[in-house]
């Protein structure tokens, strides 16, 4: 049973879908951020796999930068959450509906 690229791609897609479920489902912003991490990680697997099967390093590069980006996002995201939490004592996204229509 040979593990081909498709296996990894399918795995990646499944994980991506799980991430999407999280993104859509979570009302707590922190947990929602977790889901976005899942999204990025799932793609990373695919990149690494493609890179492996093509024998090309670009995919790993991409994955590397994705990790960097994910890390930066966490910093900014948490910063925003902290400010919000300081004011409102919650990080539930239901508390952010002052603008609509």
């Amino acid at each position, binding site marked *: 049973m040979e593990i081909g690229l498709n296996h990894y*791609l399918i795995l990646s897609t499944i994980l991506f879908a799980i991430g999407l479920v999280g993104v859509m489902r979570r009302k707590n912003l922190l947990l929602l951020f977790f889901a976005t991490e899942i999204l990025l990680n799932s793609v990373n697997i695919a990149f690494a796999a493609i890179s492996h099967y093509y024998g090309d390093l670009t995919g790993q590069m991409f994955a590397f930068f994705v990790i960097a980006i994910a890390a930066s996002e966490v910093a900014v995201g948490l910063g925003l959450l902290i400010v919000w939490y300081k004011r409102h004592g919650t990080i539930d996204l239901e508390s952010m509906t002052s603008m609509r229509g």
Partner: protein
Amino acid sequence: MLSPINVSLESLNLITLAPMLIPVVGALLILVIDILKGGLDRSLYVVLSVLFLALDFGALLDSAGVFGKDGIVLGLFDVMLIDGIAILAQFIIVATSMLFIPLALTHKRFHEFSYPEFFALFLFMISGFQFMVASDNLILIFVGLETASLALYTLIAMHNRDKSFEAAVKYFTMGALAAGFYSFGAMVFYALTGSVEINQIATVLAANGYVDIGYVLVGVVFMLGSFGFKLSVVPFHTWTPDVYEGSSAAMAGYMSIVPKIAAFVVAMRIFEFLVHSGIAWLEFILWIMVVVTMTAANVWALVQTDVKRMLAYSSISHAGFVMAAILVGTTQSNSALFLYWVLFSFTNLGSFSMLWISRQKQLPGYQKTDHSFDKFSGMIITSPMAAIIMAIFMLSLAGLPPFALFWGKVYMISSAVTGGYTILALIMALNSAIAGYYYLKLIVYMFMKDPIASNVDNNGELYVANATLALKSIIGFAIVGTIFAFLAINPLLEFITTFVYNSGY
């Protein structure tokens, strides 16, 4: 074993980096100044920013000269791609930024402009956008995009009130999702072609004759999702009105222009070859997206009660309108995109600035939001000049000749006509009529309603509550540009067309 790699300095073309590095240096300098001596006045940072942006602009002129002479320049292992559209986009980005940053010098003090970090982040953001447009490598595009976006989220939040945090969080979260889409899309393209460079992707796909059309489409879908978010294409637009409302008016105006032109350039790079490859599906989808975005945004704008939010929807609609250029995909349409955006930048920044100078800190009872329509009732009586200027901006946005955007619209619709998209051209034209309604609504309030008593008493002070010389100059500049645009269209058009054409678009 590894052999040492020899890289000649000339082959790197380091000069291609100059325009991006200048704002980075500026940002660092600002941070350093702040560390050395805190509490300095914002005017210092404003002027410094303007100076660096001016330098940046100078560097761009230089790049433009080089491009005019030698054509497309690649640099630093071909990661940097300085072609016509990159230069044009950077011109728009830098010029708009130069117009924007003096808006910090308001009469009232607002949180974001009081801190040097704002200006540092601002300059970082500009360099991020510049990297984004000056490359066809999906990785650099991604990194540039994220640099700019992260800075932008912070800039929005720094307005420091509940709505701005809310806006920043919404923008951020959706941005994270869009980043996921982007990386997934890039992954698909990489899987298909083994490359993350757009021209390489195009070459490989063409060589394969698009046999894997299904995969290509998946990649396209995710890319559409990601750039749809950036360009606020329906249904990825939902952040736009909230974010515009949450941020300061000046920032909202800025956001309606700069991030979008950057995204447009990248979208052009990605989708152009796909459209040309004759993927009927993409054409169809883009057609639908353009039409839906234009129309739906207009329809939503109709029912707004706040001017800023209305303008937010209107800029969604404008973006949809301009998306048509990517669909049409001719040299004329791509030139039209830039022409339109140059003209749009004047007008839209001007109109948001008009909101900005009338920004109050405490809202009177009749006013629910910062810039509700009621606020502008009878403005022609209390401050006629401001009302006329605002009206001209609105008329220009509505596409009424001879104001700036009319020429953009004409050229854009003409490109659709030339490209064979007759129905699209008609829909684009008729959308202006729908849009006319909500622009007129403001004019109706300003010119045809009776003023609110308290505004009459203080002689329309409300409308210039925030005005300083700097703001007035910017508005003056915008209004002159808006009215007399027709004088500049010809050179602008020739310049843009040359650049776009020589870049191969």
